[in-house]
């Protein structure tokens, strides 16, 4: 233990004499963490799209039966997904797309209300892209998602119109057509009238067999049309989402971003410091001297991991306290924060010393640490369903073998009470500490 203490004091003294490195170790992860946090918690900017509405203002409201639909309402909805640049002609819209001042052009043709009202064929809007695949994908996604919402809203309106016609057919009422008002009897009343007439006819009347099928048809029509309204409603919205979160508390994206930011910082500080300080022993040729019985391999690895963990826990905790000043975190769980940070830091630090044992100098150690850590972060954040099932299984295995995912789960559980439980995540991290500890011992023998 005395050797570990002297080595620890020596490394702290070296760190103190490397202010640029120390500052980088704190600022770099903090900057990366903040950027990741911002990227996750803020939505993307709206793509600039040239917008031309060719519908004459006088025709922007269409009438379907007794329902009036204002098409400008859907225009407003579309503008939630794009930053519209209003243009006055198709030529101008095309010119804007060509010179790159807008990513795309969205043109609403003048016959859209007519096509919607006639229902004879699908109404359409025209989108013109500049051929850049990434930009096209961005605009396409934005416009298509909002058009899907507009379609859903229109479907609701059309369902209402269809429903009102069915009500009229069933129950009767007044119908205005071409300015002329009609009284419609309705199927229910027709069935009732037919039934009354049939009951007054003598048994042998020749009208009875001719009217009876009509009365039966009226009854069937009433029964089926009454249920057809529900069918139309189901067609308008075939699937609606009823949300239920079963695994613990659902973490809002902003709070999840906090966990990610802290875990990323923890990872960078640990990996860079643990791998760097161990690689420094090789670079300075002191490792061979130490290995001659001055410090045992386990003590040496433990000292580097301990130093990196203490620094990383300090940085992670400071970040949480700083974030806690702006975001309502649960201060009563501070003890669990520290526990999760310690668990995550030890796992990252053990991976760090395993990497540091493989290389001969600090720069190579830093490069290796960055090469390993970046893909791990991105892989751990791939949600299920975002990639093919087989690939996702492979990603899950890879994420389970490295500490980022488990550390993120531990921090998220401690900070946001999300699932899986903190203890499960800490158990996972303990296994990784043991595994990477063995690898570090092997790497140090090189």
């Amino acid at each position, binding site marked *: 233990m*005395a*050797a570990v203490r*002297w*080595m620890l004091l*020596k490394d702290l*003294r*070296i760190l103190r*004499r*490397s202010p640029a490195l120390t500052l980088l170790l704190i600022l770099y992860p903090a900057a990366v963490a903040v950027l990741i946090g911002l990227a996750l918690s803020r939505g993307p900017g709206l793509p600039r799209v040239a917008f031309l509405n060719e519908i004459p203002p006088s025709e922007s409201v269409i009438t379907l039966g007794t329902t009036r639909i204002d098409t400008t309402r859907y225009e407003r909805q579309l503008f939630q997904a794009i930053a519209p640049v209003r243009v006055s002609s198709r030529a101008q819209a095309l010119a804007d797309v060509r010179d790159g001042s807008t990513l795309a052009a969205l043109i609403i043709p003048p016959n859209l209300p007519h096509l919607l009202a006639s229902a004879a064929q699908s109404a359409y809007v025209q989108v013109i892209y500049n051929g850049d695949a990434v930009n096209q994908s961005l605009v396409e996604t934005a416009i298509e998602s909002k058009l899907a919402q507009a379609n859903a809203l229109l479907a609701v309106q059309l369902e209402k119109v269809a429903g009102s016609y069915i009500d009229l057919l069933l129950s009767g009422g007044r119908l205005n057509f071409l300015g002329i008002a009609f009284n419609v009897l309705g199927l229910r009343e027709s069935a009732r009238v037919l039934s009354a007439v049939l009951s007054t006819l003598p048994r042998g009347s020749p009208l009875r067999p001719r009217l009876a099928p009509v009365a039966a048809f009226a009854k069937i029509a009433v029964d089926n049309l009454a249920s057809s309204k529900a069918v139309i409603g189901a067609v308008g919205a075939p699937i609606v989402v009823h949300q239920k979160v079963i695994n613990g508390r659902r973490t809002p994206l902003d709070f999840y971003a906090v966990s990610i930011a802290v875990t990323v910082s923890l990872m960078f500080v640990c990996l860079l410091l643990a791998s760097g300080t161990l690689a420094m022993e090789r670079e*300075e*040729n*002191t490792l*061979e*001297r*130490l*290995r*001659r*019985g*001055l*410090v045992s391999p386990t003590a040496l690895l433990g000292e580097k991991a301990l130093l990196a963990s203490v620094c990383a826990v300090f940085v992670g905790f400071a970040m949480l306290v700083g974030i806690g000043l702006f975001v309502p975190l649960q201060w009563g769980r501070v003890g669990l924060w520290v526990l999760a940070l310690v668990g995550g830091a030890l796992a990252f630090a053990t991976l760090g010393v395993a990497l540091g044992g493989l290389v001969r100098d600090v720069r190579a150690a830093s490069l290796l640490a960055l090469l390993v850590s970046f893909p791990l972060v991105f892989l751990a954040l791939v949600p299920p369903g975002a990639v093919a099932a087989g690939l996702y299984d492979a990603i899950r295995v890879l994420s389970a073998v490295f500490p980022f995912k488990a550390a993120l789960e531990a921090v998220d559980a401690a900070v946001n009470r999300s699932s899986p439980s903190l203890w499960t995540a800490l158990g996972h991290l303990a296994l990784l500490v043991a595994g990477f500890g063995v690898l570090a011992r092997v790497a140090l023998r090189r």
Partner: protein
Amino acid sequence: MTQPTLQARSLSKRFGDRVALRDVSFDLAAGEILAVIGPNGAGKTTLLSLLAGAATPTDGEVIAPPGERIGWVPQQTALYSKLSVLENLRLFARLERVADPEASVAVMLEQTGLRERADDQLGRLSGGNRQRVNIAIGLLAQPVVALLDEPSASLDPRQRERLWRFIAARAQAGTSIVFTTHDIAEAERYAARLLVLADGELLFSGPPADLRSHGSGDMESAFVSFLRECGH
């Protein structure tokens, strides 16, 4: 010969398919100064690493007095460049579990003439001064055997003279010295016995005068003639 302080028994070291050292055996007496010479790649540094315990032999063994520490001065300085001379010496004195670290450090600073530079950071010292600290750390724990890998390589003549005086004093006090060098004249001047290695094989073990008999000119010519005779 008195009881040896260090014994090498059939030492061999392989790195993959390459044999760096093959079946090397010798004894080292108390207070003896032994020089290991040979062409580049002969296995001199490998031999010292094995004797120091910094590397493990593939075959054979090193027998050292139980409980005694062997001092090792590697060819490349093995020091922390961000620490001062004093901090380096203190750290290694503590890691070596020296009984009185401060006293040992003071003695070493005095003997190596580095007292004035004690607070200077290692990274700011000249190569020669760094090597002096490197040597001081190897000898901090008053070892019974000191292994020095090309100790005079980066020293100027004045520092070199001072080093050899220091080493001779240690040997007179009973410390056994093994050093490697490319300077054959230096080996002849300071060593009581020479080991000649070539391609990992021990070709010669004896006093410098015996090696000199292999040529008619100076020691360096005799050494080259000897290697040629041995087919190297």
